[in-house]
């Protein structure tokens, strides 16, 4: 095996050369296809999760459906959707949104369950109306649990986008198919490294966000 694992000059030449396979372009597409599903998922999971937390009867069937969704292989969903949405980023974004929902709805429900009853009652006694109580008391307390779900969904989403390369929309995953077709290691190694780095970076951002959103958890620890 004479071919080195990484040819650094290839990376330099292909970083931003204007072709649709330029690493920078792929990275940007990857970020869009990975984060839009998580944001969409969170926007949808909040009302659905709150509804499930309030009306417990809903939760059982919703988890059932979400378990089934989660069991579906991404490639299968991509290829089924391909006939509906065609060769667009939407074909990747819709299944990944469903996967995010499957992680985020239980996270929202668990988060709401983690609010102690006496806190809820105190808030009511202090004159909070249900909506204000939800926004100012319950959601902040639920934040760590919800964000833990967001972290799982984000990492999974970043990693799964690459499978989309098999249907022609995979962000950095295109480096894998490219490397495979040309029996060339460098794009594959670059793709794996960038995806893992992206996931770690996103995870660190979310940890920072959590510290920002829940300053009391730090205050309690240092006290």
């Amino acid at each position, binding site marked *: 095996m004479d071919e080195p694992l990484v040819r650094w000059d290839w990376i330099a030449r292909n970083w931003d050369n204007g072709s649709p396979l330029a690493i920078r372009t792929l990275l940007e597409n990857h970020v869009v296809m990975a984060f839009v599903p998580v944001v969409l998922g969170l926007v949808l999971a909040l009302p659905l999760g709150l509804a499930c937390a309030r009306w417990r009867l809903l939760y059982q069937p919703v988890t059932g459906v979400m378990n089934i969704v989660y069991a579906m292989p991404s490639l299968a969903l991509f*290829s089924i959707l391909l006939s509906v949405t065609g060769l667009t980023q939407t074909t990747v974004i819709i299944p990944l949104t469903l996967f995010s929902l499957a992680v985020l709805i239980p996270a929202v429900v668990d988060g709401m369950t983690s609010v102690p009853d006496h806190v809820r009652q105190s808030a009511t006694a202090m004159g909070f109306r249900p909506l204000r109580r939800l926004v100012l008391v319950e959601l902040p307390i639920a934040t760590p649990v919800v964000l833990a779900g967001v972290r799982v969904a984000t990492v999974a989403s970043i990693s799964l986008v690459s499978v989309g390369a098999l249907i022609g929309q995979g962000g950095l995953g295109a480096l894998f198919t490219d490397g495979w077709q040309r029996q060339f290691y460098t794009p594959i190694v670059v793709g794996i490294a960038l995806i893992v780095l992206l996931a770690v970076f996103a995870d660190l951002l979310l940890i920072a966000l959590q510290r920002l959103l829940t300053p009391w958890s730090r205050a309690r620890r240092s006290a």
Partner: protein
Amino acid sequence: MNWLIDFFGNPDNWSGPDGIPVRLLQHVEFSVLAFLIAALIALPLGLWVGHTGRGAVLVVLSANAARALPTLGLLVLVVLLIGVGTIWPVLIPLVALAIPPILVNTYEGVRGVDRDLRDAAYGMGLRGRQVLFRALVPVALPLILLGLRLAAIQVVATATVAAYVGLGGLGRYIIDGLATKDYPSVFGGAVLVVLLALAVQFGFALLNRVVVSPGVRQVR
């Protein structure tokens, strides 16, 4: 719908080396193999780390990092490096994928057992290993099974992707169909994979009923 009738109604799809029975069997074969290898590595390790608490930080950190590994990239790289003479190179990424969920859930399960229960088991005269297998494992079983289920589903799903590097299995219908624009085949293959994944899901739900002690189930 017409595509499904085209695909499943075609007698050619039911026999020979490209037939659904053969492809299904291949898919199940290397899924089971990868899953068993991963379980053989991750279960004992998870039990040990959970019971002794040694190396816990390392296990959780590396398992989380491993979750970010893109399946397709790993698969392509390993197969390019080793070649496709046997199915072993393809098994490596599948095993690597299945280990983290089993390991983390087993660890968390054993770790999370009520301290009082652990102490009570010691108090009743059980020793280290007996405590683990007679008290901790039965209580942690729902979480351990969850980890095994997630791993099994991931393996079945990823084995589909493995068709890209020339492996058999149900993924062939999708990959070959995409290459030749044979959409009934793509659609039919996708439906088959979904059905298989659902079967795994229900299999584990059933297993849960059978092996988890009723007392533990009620608490959850």
